[in-house]
């Protein structure tokens, strides 16, 4: 049997869904953790039409992007400073190496007692997680700028601020965007994780509530939706990277 190339990748997921559906129906499985795909699809449609899913998505994405903006900005500024000044880079080495390995969720209890439940603590944790990839990649990008460009800046007697604005940022931009793309993925993961662990907000709280309400169809619908959100975010950022930077970004990807 010869199949068109485009169908082949879709075959496995479709077959799995079908077998799952038939098995659930035939065996008449009553479970708190599983539901037939058709029921999941119904629950997904229901949650989408009553708006609860979209509201939860908005909450999660708002916290994730606010954290990304805050953490990314801190990472960007520090990364440029560390990339430009060799002295500063070496002096901060131990401090950064000591703070960076702390897993972001470990800060959850600290954020909880300092900021309470809600957006603020989630944003704080997401931004902590986003600082590091942006900082590391920006530092590498700025450090790897063609030295002649810096010489040109010196010849033109640009001020430090102009040097950063007119030479450093444009030259390092493709790789900085790549850093932000990776950080956006991390932001979503951390936001959902914080919500699942403790914060009564957004998609993570929604999936936990569905689980506690013994609604496996709704729970799995949330799971599918979280997957869709992650996939869409990734695809959108990939497309943006391609249109904005084209080949320059591809080079950054390999480095």
């Amino acid at each position: 049997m010869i199949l068109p190339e485009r169908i082949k990748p879709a075959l496995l997921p479709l077959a799995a869904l079908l077998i799952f559906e038939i098995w659930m129906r035939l065996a008449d499985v009553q479970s708190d953790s599983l539901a037939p795909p058709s029921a999941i699809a119904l629950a997904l449609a229901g949650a989408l039409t009553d708006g609860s899913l979209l509201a939860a998505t908005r909450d999660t994405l708002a916290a994730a992007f606010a954290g990304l903006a805050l953490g990314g900005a801190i990472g960007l500024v520090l990364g440029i400073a560390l990339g430009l000044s060799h002295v500063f880079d070496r002096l901060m080495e131990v401090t950064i190496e000591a703070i960076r390995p702390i897993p972001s969720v470990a800060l959850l209890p600290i954020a909880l007692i300092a900021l309470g439940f809600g957006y603020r603590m989630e944003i704080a944790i997401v931004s902590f997680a986003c600082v590091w990839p942006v900082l590391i990649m920006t530092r590498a990008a700025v450090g790897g700028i063609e030295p002649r460009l810096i010489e040109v800046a010196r010849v033109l007697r640009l001020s430090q601020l102009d040097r950063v604005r007119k030479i450093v940022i444009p030259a390092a931009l493709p790789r900085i965007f790549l850093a932000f793309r990776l950080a956006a993925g991390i932001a979503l993961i951390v936001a959902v994780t914080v919500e699942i662990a403790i914060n009564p907000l957004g998609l993570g709280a929604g999936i936990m509530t569905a689980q506690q309400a013994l609604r496996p169809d709704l729970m799995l619908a949330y799971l599918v939706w979280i997957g869709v959100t992650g996939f869409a975010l990734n695809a959108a950022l990939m497309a943006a990277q391609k249109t904005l930077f084209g080949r320059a970004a591809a080079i950054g990807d390999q480095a």
Partner: protein
Amino acid sequence: MRWSVLGWRLASFAVAAGIIALWQLAANQRLISPVFLPGPDRAWASLMRGFTSGDLLTKLMGTLTHMAYGWLLASIAGVALGAMIGSSKAMRIYVAPTLELLRPLPVSAIIPVAIAALGLSQGMALFVIAFGSLWPMLLGTVHGFAAVEPRLYEVARVLHMSRLAVIFKIALPSAAPDILAGMRLSLTVALILAVVCEMLAGLDGLGQWVLLSARSFRSADLFAGVMLLGVIGYVTALAMGAAESRLLRWQAARR
């Protein structure tokens, strides 16, 4: 040259010490309420007390055990599955796209499903940690197998090597950098998921320790736990890096 490296390192430690001194000063002046921010002296005392009484040590061992079991399980399954998928062209066409589709799913979203299926138990934590750590290794192995120099496969065909021999003698060694990079990424994932699972399920571990400390406003214990989690992150990354450079020495020499 050697001396200047040492000098910079010392200066860098001095900066870190300065920051700790500032932290101590801020805590002593009570700029921030000691409920949220204990001084480094109190956090250190709490760390020492935790170790001498053995409380913190059991929690530390708990977290390490969760991490290690989940990660090892995922390593074995990830590399075996990855080798199976990566070494067959048909599997790569049919299965790999599904894996890519699932990749951006925030893995922590599987936690509620695991709780519904397995309850708030050790088994749930093990499943979640293994599931989460599986992806980077699985995708790394598949990618590494796909990127093997095609001429090596031709050599294998000429030598009439069996498929198993090809996997062990050619594909695994040349895919080793990708596999090890996946393993290092998984280690971070495993630590984060271990902490979250311990918080949610109340399992013996540092995640539960920091959360309970926060709930009863014992901030010194909380910071001691967070510092210890940072140490775990640092030491495991360091060990992985050492293992990586040792296992890949033959490749570095070839380049």
